[in-house]
């Protein structure tokens, strides 16, 4: 976490460091998603900053957003939050009345901040809402295949499992795809992402099988439905998600299994990737090397590569997705753009 260290060092001489705040927020609350952390950081920024005019506020916001995006290696999820907040701010400021351009700026500010907090609280609650919507997709006797460390998926599955032996409990099984990319080579003790969910589900009495990514095609025949989480939902209804989701989507399509995505609506990003290599981030997943390159490079680069691979994402195009389960309902991929347009115009 080089960025975090830089940020904390910088916070000594600077009055407020957005990057450090963001990272601290993410670390302090494991339930926090990237967009929400970004919004929370921006709200904190506004409370700390002494800006007194609208344009000053907007300027500050823009600058800090740019800084934040630059400092984070994968700002896709984050940008959903910052864009949303900016949009919200602008529409609030444009609205006529007491809080409009003619109103008292301090009142506007107070309103913004309180509403920002309200937004964050609501966003945290949205996970329960999604779990309620998505329950119906996990049927009695079915087998669910899932991957990654998505907290929404975990909450959905736990919701479906209900209390152990309770009357509302759905009896289902889970095939959990555990990523082998992370921690396999150097730190054996670091457990793969999602292990926590696996334990929780097992504790709730749900039979869970864990498989490596290489066994997805083999196991998919036994699964009835695929449910995955997402880092960001893009404009055409596709998703940006942990590396390996795309191949699960392709396989599910090939085998005719429904492929559902669970995501909060604040993860909708104003981004339109045309394919895997059109994402606005640098990823070194494919890195061609000869023996010479390997000897030229020192050992340290090796471990950073592994870290990068663990963080890498891919893009699952909309035609592979059966439906998106969000807190504004169950949407088809094409409805995502409609939702986004509603927010933006």
């Amino acid at each position, binding site marked *: 976490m080089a960025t975090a260290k830089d940020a904390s060092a910088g916070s000594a001489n600077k009055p407020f460091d957005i990057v450090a705040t963001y990272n601290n927020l993410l670390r302090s609350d494991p339930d926090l998603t990237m967009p929400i952390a970004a919004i929370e950081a921006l709200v904190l920024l506004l409370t700390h900053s002494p800006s007194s005019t609208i344009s000053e506020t907007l300027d500050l916001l823009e600058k800090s957003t740019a800084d934040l995006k630059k400092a984070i290696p994968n700002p896709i999820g984050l940008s959903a939050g910052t864009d949303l907040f900016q949009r919200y701010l602008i529409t609030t400021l444009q609205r006529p009345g007491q809080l409009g351009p003619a109103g008292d700026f301090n009142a506007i500010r107070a309103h913004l901040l309180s509403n920002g907090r309200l937004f964050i609280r609501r966003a945290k609650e949205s996970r329960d809402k999604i779990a309620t919507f998505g329950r119906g997709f996990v049927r009695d006797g079915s087998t669910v295949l899932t991957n990654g460390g998505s907290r929404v998926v975990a909450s959905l599955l736990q919701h479906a499992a209900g209390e152990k032996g309770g009357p509302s409990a759905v009896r289902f099984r889970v095939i959990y795809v555990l990523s082998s990319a992370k921690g396999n080579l150097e730190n054996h003790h670091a457990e793969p992402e999602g292990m926590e969910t696996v334990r929780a589900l097992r504790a709730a009495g749900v039979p869970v099988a864990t498989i490596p990514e290489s066994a997805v095609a083999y196991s998919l025949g036994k699964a009835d439905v695929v449910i995955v989480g997402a880092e960001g939902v893009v404009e*055409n209804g596709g998703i940006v998600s942990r590396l390996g989701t795309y191949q699960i989507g392709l396989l599910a399509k090939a085998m005719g299994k429904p492929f559902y995505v669970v995501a909060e609506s604040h993860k909708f990003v*104003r981004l339109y990737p045309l394919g895997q290599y059109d994402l606005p981030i640098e990823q070194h997943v494919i890195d061609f090397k000869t023996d010479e390159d390997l000897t030229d490079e020192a050992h340290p680069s090796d471990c950073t590569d592994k870290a990068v691979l663990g963080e890498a994402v891919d893009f699952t195009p909309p035609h592979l997705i059966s439906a998106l389960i969000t807190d504004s309902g169950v949407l088809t991929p*094409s409805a995502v*753009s409609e939702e986004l*347009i509603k927010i933006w*115009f």
Partner: protein
Amino acid sequence: MTAPVDSTSGSTPAAGSADAQKPNSEARTGQPPPPTATPTSTTSKPAKAANGATKPPGKAKGGAVEGGEETLTGAELKKRAKAEKAARRAKEKLEREQAGGGGGGGGGDSAGAGGAGAAGTGQTAPPSAKKGGQAMGAKEAAAIGLQKGQKQAAPRRGSAQVVQQGGGVVEPKKKKEDKKVAVFGHLYGQQRRTTIAGAAKEVHPAVLALGLQMRDYVICGSNARCVATLLAFKRVIESYTTPLGTSLARHLTTHLSHQITYLSTCRPLSISQGNAIRALKLHISSVDPSVPEAAAKASLCDFIDSFIREKITVADQVIATSAAQKIQDGDVIVTFAGSSIVKQTLLTAYKQGKKFRVSIIDSRPLFEGKNLARVLAKAGLDVQYSLVHGISHAIKDATKVFLGAHAMTSNGRLYSRVGTALVAMSAKERAGGVEIPVIVCCETVKFTDRVALDSIVVNEIADADELVTAEPLAQVTGLMDKAASQPEASTTAKKGNNKPAAPSPLTESHAGMRSTASASPLKDWRDTPNLQLLNLMYDATPAEYVDMVVTEMGSLPPSAVPIVHRMSTNS
């Protein structure tokens, strides 16, 4: 239905009155209306006029009969008139079929362009015109009626050949073959105007000229036509004075609808033209009657200017900037024909210092890509130019496809120059399974709430003679593109003109053949049995073949077209 463009069916109250006026004025220009003014005679009046065009004695007789029998009751009169009309029609048909095909047909049709023909249509067409009127907007029906009229001065079926420049003399007895391609038969109603003769007297000279320019493709392309129409209408508005006893809001729409009718007879209106006209009419009808005329006209001109600026000029800049972001170093961009917005996108990307190649796919008979190739090559881009039959070759090393649009329909289909669907399909179904993204650049002014399932129901049929001659048809306006006479297979141009240095022997021999008396083997296609030519203008690309639509409101999947259309028309 075959409604060409929904455009003119604006919800203005004046529309109805315009139509009511139209047939009368046409009749006036053609033939003096019969003297009688009873209801009966009005029903049969147009028939008489038409008859008059072909055989004057009949008309004289008809007039005399009707004038003499005023004593009969209305019902009886009606019955008799009906019977007379039926008999006359049968007779007329018989006559036409006999004299028909060759010289007769040609004569009838050339007359059709003039007023007499238009009057004639008034009643050869009534059933169809009426039918049309129910389904489509009132004004449109009038426009179509007019077009139909021109054509249907010749009998409708059997010898229904549409001859423009007299098709040579054939044995008069022989029944002529229908040269309409059956599946597209409903589209032939839109026969294009050949001269400005017979245009309504209200039509402004600027509009007259524009009509011919559009007919000859001097002004071609959805955007260009839209802008040119708006600018012409601006001149119409500038030179307009409200007649006594009416208000500007009520009368100007009528006045404009004359211009629109004329334009639509030159070439069916594009979706963008329709949308622009609808917006303009809406604005006119909302003009406060208490506003002085000069101020109202100024506000209308301002509206037109800002419409062009917002919906087209600035929109194009926004689209070009955002679409250019999708171009990366090393890309090979395939584009089809000549879209102004794609041109702007490519130039923008080039100015940003991106290194990419452009492969232009073009097709007969318009060769719109040639101009694009020239402009891009002149600007310094690497350009490869080939015709659409070289598509499988051109698509092989492509990485992205950029397409312009004539319209985007509400089911997400792209309605564009014929051949676009083929290019999009080649990109998506490329052998090897790797899909190339297909990106459509389209202003929201080209969105329509209509739905296109195929390219058959709604389309435009151009003159089939364009396919026959390699050279463009004799134009009334504009410049002849000599280069257009040589369809080249595939030419790679590097900075400069894309013409090869020396024509191959094959093309030479072709040129030789062309210069001989019979220019093309297809020249006599009208007289060649079992031969039909089809010259379609547009096709519909399925939404699955389009990955992204770049508009001034952002990038969308094709499925979001209706939502954005709804929003851009509401606000």
